[in-house]
């Protein structure tokens, strides 16, 4: 678990820092009206997609992380590789589309440290479930029930994801307004 989480932290933080750096070298220092428009348009597309109003293909690699690593490498090494692979975010399947909004936000804000923090916390949210899972199951035999429950709550997670997108877009509007007053 620790190897998995730590490797994911490293990978995700690097992704975020890189995006922030890209923004810092290619964009002006403050979010302008164009940036706000892009974020709101992307948020609207993501929401429409996730609530099911339109079928919008999401750019992603249609790949899962490698099971065979567990057969080839010792446990902690395999776990670290999985964590690093998933932590890179875009090398494997994406469940929902909101992460693309994080990409745009990281680039627009254009600060590598902030980008790293943004994707670190995205990974934190993602990895947290692995740490909490043992607390949800009375013992290992209940794992199939837990997995079934996770699958059964897909729509709930999707709606929570939409709320997250709305929250992100709302805060971004507030940031734009704050910068406009400065």
């Amino acid at each position, binding site marked *: 678990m620790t190897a998995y989480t730590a490797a994911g932290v490293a990978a995700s933080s690097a992704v975020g820092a890189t995006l922030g750096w890209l923004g810092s070298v290619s964009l002006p220092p403050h979010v302008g009206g164009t940036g706000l428009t892009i974020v709101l348009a992307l948020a609207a597309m993501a929401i429409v997609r996730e609530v099911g109003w339109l079928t919008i293909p999401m750019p992603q690699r249609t790949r899962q992380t490698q099971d065979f690593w567990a057969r080839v490498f010792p446990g902690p090494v395999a776990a670290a590789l999985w964590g690093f692979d998933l932590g890179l975010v875009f090398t494997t399947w994406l469940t*929902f589309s909101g992460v693309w909004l994080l990409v745009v936000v990281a680039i627009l804000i254009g600060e590598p440290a902030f980008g790293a923090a943004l994707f670190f916390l995205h990974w934190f949210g993602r990895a947290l479930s692995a740490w909490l899972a043992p607390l949800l199951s009375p013992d290992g035999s209940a794992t199939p029930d*837990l997995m079934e*429950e996770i699958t059964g*709550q897909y729509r709930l*997670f999707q709606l929570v994801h939409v709320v997250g997108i709305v929250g*992100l877009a709302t805060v971004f509007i507030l*940031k734009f307004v704050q910068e406009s007053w400065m």
Partner: protein
Amino acid sequence: MATQRAGEAELTASSRAGIRRRFRMVALAVPTAAMLGGALATPLAPEAGLLAAAIVLGWTQLAGL
């Protein structure tokens, strides 16, 4: 024998119901805590709200398992 099996089935159903309850509580508690924290911190620094939203977006990737 039948009574024992019925008892075990009831225990399994009860266990599963407990898992469902705990899972749904946690499934909503984590993003709620993140969003509340973000809502409180955003007036001081909007970036905090963005970071809180990132936790929510990451957490919901769990659905893809």
